């Protein structure tokens, strides 16, 4: 019915009723009605538009975990095309007067995109209409920021209506042309993070994004781990104190790292760096490896935990012991994981008696390494995508647990 007043040159897409049902089901996992409806609309938008983009060029949607926790608090979703981030902003407004972008998408560094698309849903929710797009820079420079609602507003007439232009030129503009500078987020100390998570984690808080000063909100949301924590808190899921933060290694494959995980040279001294990179890998695998280090506080000292991820080729699979359900002949979706513990700072040896234990999610010990007055500890194993494990790093009687999901 509502598709009558569109021309052949308008960018409209029919919404498949099956997608609609699926999106509705998926949205039920949110805890507030607002978040459920928000997740529903955004999922509709994403599921309908993504295949259209993929017909032309390679494109990926934001990963589902990121989607869930984003839609719990704000409107909007992301498609990445050839390294360029498109932020889709759905709206049910009948009047197509303006593009309204939540401030999160503009002023939080890890959220910001290159192009923002104004997506309208017709009154019967059966048609999607993309009215136009604008760059991050345009929105920042020409848009108005509503400080109370924390949204940027840009008149629709300021947008570029012809999506063809986007497809034809998106690979030709660099971020210096599409994005305005974004201030780095404020630094939050762990106690502040805890306090914010407690306060905003109460699902009866219906407008969490407007509760605290934007600077704090932005800092919290910029960090994927803290964002996830907040989401879990609102979802009401009980987490054991030690394993609240799950490190998702799959995201490392996409180049997304939590603030806590830094490149090796930021954490290790040169001689440790040399020890660390002494591995038995061939150059090809070495080049595909991803390494990150995190400083772990062990009471009487600090150590650096290094995680080294190497996606395995089909040939290598099947020759090593694996973690988990013991499927002897592995699939292509495996990674080799090497764990190392190094001293930090100018120390040459690890403090005291340091131990590293590999545990299953249930706490069953799978492997261990222990050392006294040594330079480094290593543990190596193979895991499949989707598997989860815990690491227990101990020094004398101090214990720290880190949870991972591949």
């Amino acid at each position: 019915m509502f598709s009558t007043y569109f021309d052949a040159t308008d960018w409209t897409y029919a919404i498949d009723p099956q997608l609609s049902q699926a999106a509705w089901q998926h949205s039920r996992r949110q805890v507030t009605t607002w978040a459920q409806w928000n997740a529903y609309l955004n999922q509709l938008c994403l599921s309908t538009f993504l295949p259209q983009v993929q017909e032309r060029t390679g494109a990926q949607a934001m990963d589902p975990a990121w989607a869930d926790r984003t839609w719990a608090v704000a409107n909007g979703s992301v498609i990445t095309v050839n390294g360029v981030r498109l932020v889709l902003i759905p709206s049910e407004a009948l009047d197509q007067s303006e593009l309204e972008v939540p401030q999160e998408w503009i002023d939080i560094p890890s959220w910001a995109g290159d192009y923002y698309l104004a997506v309208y849903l017709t009154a019967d929710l059966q048609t999607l209409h993309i009215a136009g797009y604008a760059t991050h820079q345009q929105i920042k420079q020409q848009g108005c920021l509503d400080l109370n609602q924390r949204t940027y507003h840009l008149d629709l007439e300021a947008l570029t209506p012809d999506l063809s232009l986007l497809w034809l030129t998106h690979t030709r503009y660099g971020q210096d042309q599409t994005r305005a500078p974004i201030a780095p987020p404020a630094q939050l100390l762990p106690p502040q993070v805890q306090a914010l998570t407690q306060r905003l984690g109460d699902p009866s808080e219906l407008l969490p994004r407007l509760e605290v000063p934007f600077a704090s909100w932005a800092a919290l949301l910029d960090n994927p781990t803290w964002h996830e924590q907040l989401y879990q808190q609102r979802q009401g899921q009980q987490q054991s104190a030690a394993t609240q933060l799950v490190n998702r290694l799959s995201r490392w494959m996409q180049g997304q790292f939590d603030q806590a995980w830094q490149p090796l040279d930021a954490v290790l001294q040169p001689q440790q760096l040399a020890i660390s990179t002494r591995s038995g890998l061939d150059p090809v695998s070495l080049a595909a490896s991803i390494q990150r280090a995190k400083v772990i506080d062990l009471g009487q000292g600090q150590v650096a935990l290094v995680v080294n991820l190497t996606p395995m080729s089909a040939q290598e699979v099947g020759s090593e012991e694996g973690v988990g359900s013991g499927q002897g002949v592995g699939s292509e979706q495996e990674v080799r994981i090497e764990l190392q513990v190094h001293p930090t700072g100018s120390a040459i040896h690890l403090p005291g008696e340091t131990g590293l234990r590999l545990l299953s999610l249930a706490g069953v010990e799978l492997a261990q390494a222990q050392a006294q007055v040594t330079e480094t500890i290593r543990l190596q194993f193979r895991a499949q995508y989707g598997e989860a494990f815990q690491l227990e790093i101990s020094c004398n009687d101090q214990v720290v647990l880190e949870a991972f999901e591949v």
Partner: protein
Amino acid sequence: MRPRLSLLELFSTFALLEGDRIQQWVADPRLRRSVQANLPSDKAQAPDRQTPDRQSPDRQSPDRQAPEDEPVSEAAFSLFWYKRWQDACSSGDKPQQDSQSRPPQRPLAELHLAAYLQESCYWTARKTLQRFSNLSYGLADYFQLISAETERVLKYFNPSFGNSLKGYASVVHTSLLKDYLRQVRAIDVCSDWSLLRKVSHKRLHEVLSHAGIAVSEAEQYHFAWVCFKTICLPGQPTDQTFEGKGDPEQPETWSAIAQLYNTKRGQQLSAASPPLTPEQIQQRLAKVSRWIRQYLYPTVDSLNKTRPGQEKGEIQDDLADGGAESLLDQAIDREADADRRQQQGQLHQTLVQALTQMDPAAQDLLRLSYQENLSQQALAARLQMNQSTVSRRLKKAEENLLTKLLDQRPDSAHKLPEPSELKQISLLLREWLENHYADCRDSPAPSSSTSDPSVSARR
């Protein structure tokens, strides 16, 4: 309908419609005086011999007259007023946001341009009516809806790429009309509470202002609306009904909304405000919902009020600075005009060539769309394909042409304009396609593929 020819008429008269036709042109005395002050009288009265918008550049005779004797083109004069309008807007003459919410003062330049765009509005209204007829509205209504929207056209107009104001106006106006028609259709099926959820922030403020709500109070309405939207939500994927806890028919819902409003208002509102009872919030939002409906169905009275040229005392009279810098002194305008024509010439060559190289089916599609002004539905019926295929192919054809334009840019090899300026190229293409097929309509030359011999050129 007699077309206007002289610059004086073009920039100082408004159309009076009778049924579907322009019956006569009504002059506005202030605008007349203003045009005469900015042009020597002989130029103002003489028929405008150069109308680059309607002629293809290759049909124009080269100018050999001295710059001072050249007649002023309507395009040049429209740009003159556009610059005047920009100056008026930036020199601090912003619309006043006071508690009485009077209609903002409009610069004289804006009215000149509103007058200029009358024909464009008429043709846009007519074309849109042809494609999307609506039982409740006739051509005069369509015309009235867009001829009052000059400011919206001017706000984002960018002449630096050579597109004309008329061409740009036609795009903006078409979009506005379609948008309006969709809204009207939708509000007929939306319930009051559902409607409240489906307005933009901008529209809400327009509605509040139109209803005479002072700015300070508008804040409260706005936040009440935000609370409503947070709590009242649909209970089914495509249904319009609200779900249990968020059902506006239940009193508990309004208690929840009131609680949210009262606890958070200190944080959200800039001025101190009283707490509201659930009934008070419900009443306010019910009013807003009615105002939203009324906003889309203007009464005959308000239509008359918004007709350009008929306001009394709300116009800034800037005749005083009219004499300082008249058009004749601006030799730069002439050069810019010549430059523009040259660019248009190049554009024309590129596109004509690209068009002939396109496959016949795509050419046909463009012709049917632009020359015969067929809607998506009609195209689908005519070509025996479904609407999404029609849409996809038409867009592909236009994209093909767009690629040629992007590649032929005269400046440094692969340098693109700024992302926000890219759309000018798309506008240029649209304008060219409109004019090209309008010319084909005027001079019935055989088109490259006439699959349907019964096609008659319609005007």
